[in-house]
């Protein structure tokens, strides 16, 4: 350990803070990620004595604690500087000039990207999409989000850093994030009062004429026939045809029924607010402006499946929402919408806790999310068992997206039939699209399922559109010939990202940015994804240097097969999609970079001799190799 590291650990004060944090999480090893995140919030990083103390108190091997700390992008086991400035590196941030901004920011501060400044003041680096594509380029300073980076705003940030001003004193205006809702429908336009959906669910249950007074153990144990009340609500969810909004589109009713039917000690409702897919930001807006609707949805879910605890997994990038969300929860507790006997209903106990992520896209995968919530590295689990039978702490758990739960709250109020009347036969209801990229009006657009890509492009003022990336890099890239296709599970399924590229864009660079994303976010568990994404990155770099050949193109097709066939989770399965889609539709973007349509060596033999030529002062023809091209 370096002296600097030791010096930064002040025995009395810091140890007390770490112990207090541990206490607050009841010295429970399943809260390790929360403990580490909070310790870092106090100390700026995770110095070795802090990790040792945490390991000791949680009775975990130090190696395991370091393993967890080393997994999450926002946890630092090396001194990270008093200010950590992370530039969001999604393709839309780049299109808005993030790379140049970062370069000039670094040079003005005299720092190298990724390295802490000599005086330990600041470190500047990149991070995956921060969910601010509609108002990019995005920035995180010590974990707090700043939208709309510009030379002027960055000058302010620089001054604040140089003045060593604590973040609390920074002008609030820097951190203001807009909702940018452009088109409202039933969900973004909902004006339900807090608790209205929960109330509606309880009334629906009562209306079936089987109000169970006293201790309702039966519905908690999930013995269907004996618990007509919650079942009536569940039936509406099933009738609505609601499918998951987080990507896979699994039928929500089926998921809830399976969880309800699974034998349990406790059941859990988990809201997946990890929203890591580059280009999506709809959950951000739902969390900041429709939190009550979401918590209503979670409470309705709990009522249906017989759960007593809810967990919201909030991505680290949305840390700034934590206090306001906690305040909403507190208000709901005071109003009897959470806690013991919710709304006076005997036996209906339900409360919600927030777990903040620490920078990892895979943690959005539901089983990795559970691992992370249990205090481990966010590695997707082997299945079966599925979370509905053995999820959080081994108990039956439903994991749902933010938008799914909001939609479920609407169903509880208006009924399944109403919901089903919107959208298409296999995709009922509405979908919120996170529109960003080359268009006049980026932001959120809510449509009934079945809307065509062309309609969305017209509404948001997109012109000369070359391509649209639907559902982010793990989704599909389509070109102008396909803009009459429909957003729906029948045609173009989506988790929400709708990223637009006009004809000034180079689709090779787009694909390359997405490949870099997957390399950065692969959890590294399985061979094909860990090694394959890295090989793919190498190939893209080689082509980018103008040294590729057809061989590289074939190699990428082969890698795609390996990943499709053997990767452990959806990240690996889809990691080659951007390249494969772009190759199919925009092949010239690749081919004009190829040096040869046959084989091209990556190594420039003659170039390697340049240093020797300089050293020997030779420049005669004999000092050069003839190169075959």
């Amino acid at each position, binding site marked *: 350990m370096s002296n600097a590291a030791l010096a930064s650990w002040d025995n009395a004060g810091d140890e007390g803070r770490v112990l207090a944090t541990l206490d607050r999480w009841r010295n429970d090893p399943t809260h390790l990620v929360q403990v580490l995140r909070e310790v870092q919030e106090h100390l700026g990083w995770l110095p070795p004595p802090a990790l040792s103390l945490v390991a000791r108190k949680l009775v975990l091997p*130090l*190696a395991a604690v370091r393993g967890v700390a*080393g997994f999450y992008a926002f946890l630092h086991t090396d001194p990270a500087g008093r200010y950590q400035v992370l530039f969001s590196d999604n393709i839309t941030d780049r299109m808005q000039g993030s790379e140049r901004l970062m370069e000039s920011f670094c040079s003005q501060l005299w720092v190298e990207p990724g390295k802490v400044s000599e005086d330990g003041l600041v470190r500047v680096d990149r991070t995956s999409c921060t969910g601010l594509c509609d108002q990019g380029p995005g920035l995180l300073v010590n974990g707090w989000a700043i939208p709309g980076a510009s030379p002027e705003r960055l000058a302010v940030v620089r001054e604040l850093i140089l003045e060593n001003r604590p973040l609390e004193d920074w002008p609030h205006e820097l951190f203001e994030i807009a909702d940018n809702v452009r088109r409202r429908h039933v969900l973004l336009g909902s004006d339900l009062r807090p608790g209205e959906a929960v109330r509606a669910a309880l009334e629906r249950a009562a209306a079936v004429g089987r109000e169970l007074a006293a201790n309702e153990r039966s519905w908690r144990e999930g013995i269907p026939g004996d618990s007509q009340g919650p079942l009536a609500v569940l039936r509406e969810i099933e009738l609505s045809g609601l499918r998951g909004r987080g990507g896979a589109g699994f039928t929500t009713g089926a998921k809830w029924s399976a969880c309800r039917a699974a034998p349990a000690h406790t059941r859990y409702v988990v809201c997946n607010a990890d929203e890591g897919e580059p280009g999506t930001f709809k959950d951000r807006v739902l969390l900041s402006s429709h939190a009550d609707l979401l918590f209503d949805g979670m409470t309705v879910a709990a009522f249906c499946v017989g759960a007593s605890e809810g967990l919201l997994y909030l991505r680290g990038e949305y840390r700034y929402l934590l206090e306001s969300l906690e305040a909403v929860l507190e208000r709901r507790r005071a109003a009897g919408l959470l806690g013991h006997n919710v709304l006076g209903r005997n036996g209906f106990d339900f409360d919600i806790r927030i777990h903040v992520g620490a920078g990892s896209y895979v943690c959005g995968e539901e089983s990795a999310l559970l691992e992370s919530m249990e205090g481990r590295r966010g590695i997707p689990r082997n299945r*079966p068992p599925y979370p509905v039978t053995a999820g959080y702490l081994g108990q039956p758990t439903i994991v749902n997206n933010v938008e799914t739960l909001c939609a479920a709250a609407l169903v509880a109020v208006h009924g399944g039939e109403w919901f089903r009347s919107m959208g298409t036969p296999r995709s009922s209801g509405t979908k919120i699209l996170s529109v960003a990229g080359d268009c006049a009006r980026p932001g959120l657009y809510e449509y009934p399922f079945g809307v065509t890509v062309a309609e969305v492009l017209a509404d948001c003022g997109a012109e000369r559109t070359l391509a649209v990336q639907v559902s982010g890099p793990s989704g599909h890239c389509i070109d102008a010939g396909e803009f009459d296709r429909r957003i729906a599970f029948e045609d173009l399924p989506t988790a929400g990202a709708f990223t637009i590229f006009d004809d000034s864009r180079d689709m090779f660079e787009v694909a390359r940015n997405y490949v870099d994303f997957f390399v950065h976010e692969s959890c590294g568990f399985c061979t094909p994804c860990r090694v394959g994404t890295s*090989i793919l990155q190498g190939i893209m770099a080689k082509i980018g240097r103008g040294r590729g050949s057809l061989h590289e193109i074939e190699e990428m097709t082969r890698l795609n097969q390996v990943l499709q066939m053997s990767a*452990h989770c959806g990240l690996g399965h889809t990691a080659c999609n951007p390249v494969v889609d772009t190759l199919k539709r925009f092949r010239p973007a690749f081919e004009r970079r190829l040096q040869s349509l046959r084989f091209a060596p990556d190594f420039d033999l003659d170039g390697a001799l340049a240093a020797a030529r300089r050293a020997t002062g030779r420049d005669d023809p004999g000092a050069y190799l003839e190169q075959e091209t």
Partner: protein
Amino acid sequence: MSKRPTFILDDQEVPFEPGQTVLQAALAAGRYIPHLCYHPEFRPHGSCKVCTARVDGRMMAACTTPASPGINVESETEELNDLRRMLVQMLFAEGNHFCPSCEASGNCVLQALGYDLGVLTAGFRHMFPVRPVDASHPDILLDFNRCVLCELCVRASNEVDGKGVFALSGRGIDKHLVVNAESNQLADTDIALDDKAMEVCPVGVILKKRVGFAVPIGERRYDRAPISAQALADAPRSPEHKK
């Protein structure tokens, strides 16, 4: 006694006990499916993906897929062996494997898999990572250049030795092994020569000092018989399949 349930593996019936995975049942029945991170004494892991098979049309890791009655498993196909060759090539590309100078040569599962599957070329561009050796311990050497991240040492140390000497840190291509000491030096851990973790490394990472080449090359484990045969010899076998 009622008849044991069975499934189909490459057109032949394989009986299984409830609770067994496809790979476990196959090995117990004397049928080999190539694998690397699986070890009969530890909970299946499913990370190396070498045992990938087609189960009722879907690609699954045979080591973690529960055996169930009537499922149809394809393993010994050109498509799957091609995949396995590429996975082995990926592992070779990821680390620094100089087999001729390696103490584990002839005892190494990665090398033996390569031979058995007929891996003849590098396949992928090698990455040549920089992975310093840990020689701090008086009796034990850790040469991380060869680590294939199978977590067998992690599992052995946690589950059998109860010590947690090893863990993984980092993620993606930066994933790497760490040891249980603030210094991250093996000498500062409580590892012992008779720990289970000392035995399980399938490649040449965890090595005893001063016993190198005690068995000459040419007479080592996989020099005597290919890994497919050795794996079956190691597998817990049901009596009717014991020779």
